């Protein structure tokens, strides 16, 4: 263990949780799940997270995503419950090196542990008309998939990556969330991209996906 690691660990008062067992191939497998999720909006992609026991409220799936996508070049924003945990910050700093930023608009990635209370999607970097790729990717933790798991009814998705249309039951999300997602999609090509992290699965909603009016 290096000196830096020891310092951070003692601050966190618990031993620093390990990263990927096999950094090369675990990251590759996780990336392929994210890529498939992004390419096929609303589909559930399973993720092998064996061995990852990050400090709460960071979840294993969210930790896998962070280890796969974050590094020195990607400022990350954390919501209150995550920001409050020194152990989470130590874990992310040590394993990814990503700078943790206070302003949502400065972040390339955002991790939201309490999605029910999340700040508006418009708070994050939306990218510019010339460089829409410079927008943020927001990762929602603790998501459940399937009608039984969610309080809100499924929304229906259409757009690139979806053959016709598909139902997408997911939650918890704030009440105004789907209006925000629809608004996000309307400003295409600008807009943020969403990843929903469950217990062993993920799904994604890129900005290109349109939300169809739900018939209840």
């Amino acid at each position, binding site marked *: 263990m290096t000196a830096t690691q020891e310092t951070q660990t003692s601050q966190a008062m618990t031993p620093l949780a390990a990263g990927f067992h096999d950094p090369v191939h675990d990251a590759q497998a996780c*990336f392929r799940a994210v890529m498939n999720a992004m390419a096929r909006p609303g589909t559930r992609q399973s993720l092998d997270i064996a061995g990852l026991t990050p400090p709460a409220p960071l979840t294993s799936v969210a930790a896998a995503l962070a280890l796969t996508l974050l590094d020195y070049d990607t400022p990350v924003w954390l919501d209150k419950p995550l920001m409050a945990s020194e152990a989470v910050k130590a874990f992310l700093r040590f394993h990814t090196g990503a700078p943790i930023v206070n302003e949502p608009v400065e972040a390339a990635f955002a991790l939201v542990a309490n999605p029910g209370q999340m700040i508006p999607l418009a708070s994050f970097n939306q990218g510019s008309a010339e460089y829409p*790729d410079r927008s943020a990717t927001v990762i929602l933790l603790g998501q459940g998939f399937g009608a039984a798991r969610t309080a809100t009814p499924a929304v229906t998705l259409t757009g690139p990556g979806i053959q016709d249309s598909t139902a997408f039951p997911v939650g918890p999300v704030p009440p105004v969330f789907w209006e925000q997602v629809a608004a996000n999609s309307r400003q295409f090509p600008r807009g943020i991209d969403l990843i929903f992290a469950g217990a062993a699965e993920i799904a994604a909603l890129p900005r290109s996906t349109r939300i169809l009016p739900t018939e209840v």
Partner: protein
Amino acid sequence: MTDTARIPESLHEQGEYNFAYLDEQTKRMIRRAILKGIAIPGYQVPFASREMPMPYGWGTGGVQVTAAILGRSDCLKMIDQGSDDTTNAVSLRGFFEKTAGVRTTCETAEASIIQTRHRIPEKDLREDQILVFQVPIPEPLRFLEPRETETRKMHALEDYGLMHVKLYEDIAKNGHIATTYAYPVKVNDRYVMDPSPTPKFDNPKIDRMAALQLYGAGREKRIYAIPPYTKVKSLDFEDYPFEIQKFDKPCGLCGAENVYLDEVILDDKGGRMFVCSDSDYCEERRADGHLGPMAADPAAARVGNTRTGETIR
């Protein structure tokens, strides 16, 4: 000679690369660009393309994309001009065999990742397959406006008037749209995109394709993508609708129709034949007993053999 000029240890450890050659930081950077590319279909995402151990122009963009997505359980097919046995396809396949040790194949159906230059396989691709294109000039507007600063504005404003003027001038001058490959398309009703120098014959295949398409341009440092089932429309006019090349004859070897054919010159007396550009497709048909009109011709037999054997000495 100074002390700093010692030959580093790693020089003696040739062959010990990271899996698929690229370091993990580079892979992460490319992976993030791929995700943004998928989220913005047809938009060219700038990425910090690395110098690769093969020259720019040899497929460094496709190679970086493949290296970033490739896993141990993948099965890789590498084609150039539709064929697995063209020299650069052989060379790039060897690169991944050496650096990643993955399974490779010539059969389209068996591959999970297909990297290609200039063609799309004739056989329909599936949802569980990924098609990676090598791209020389990713900017469809580049030959109309060489400045990146200008073309970027045009994409931002969705101002594609220049492209339509160019195509229309073609028609006025030649009676045809004189673009036969790298024929521009509009993706998801938004971005005009260069489908790489595939013949326009292949354009209908990228419309609502079941497989994910990833495009990599190494020298120009751009990555773009078309998610599965995305609408991709070849640019045209109401009175001059888009049309693809048609061949008068079937493949001389396997008799396939409605496929893209290569012209092979048999002698210096005007003797020539047309054979499938997709060599795997042709071989599979012949193995299934399909025979083309020239299959029995001794000259054709030579062509057929060289396609499975040595094409170059």
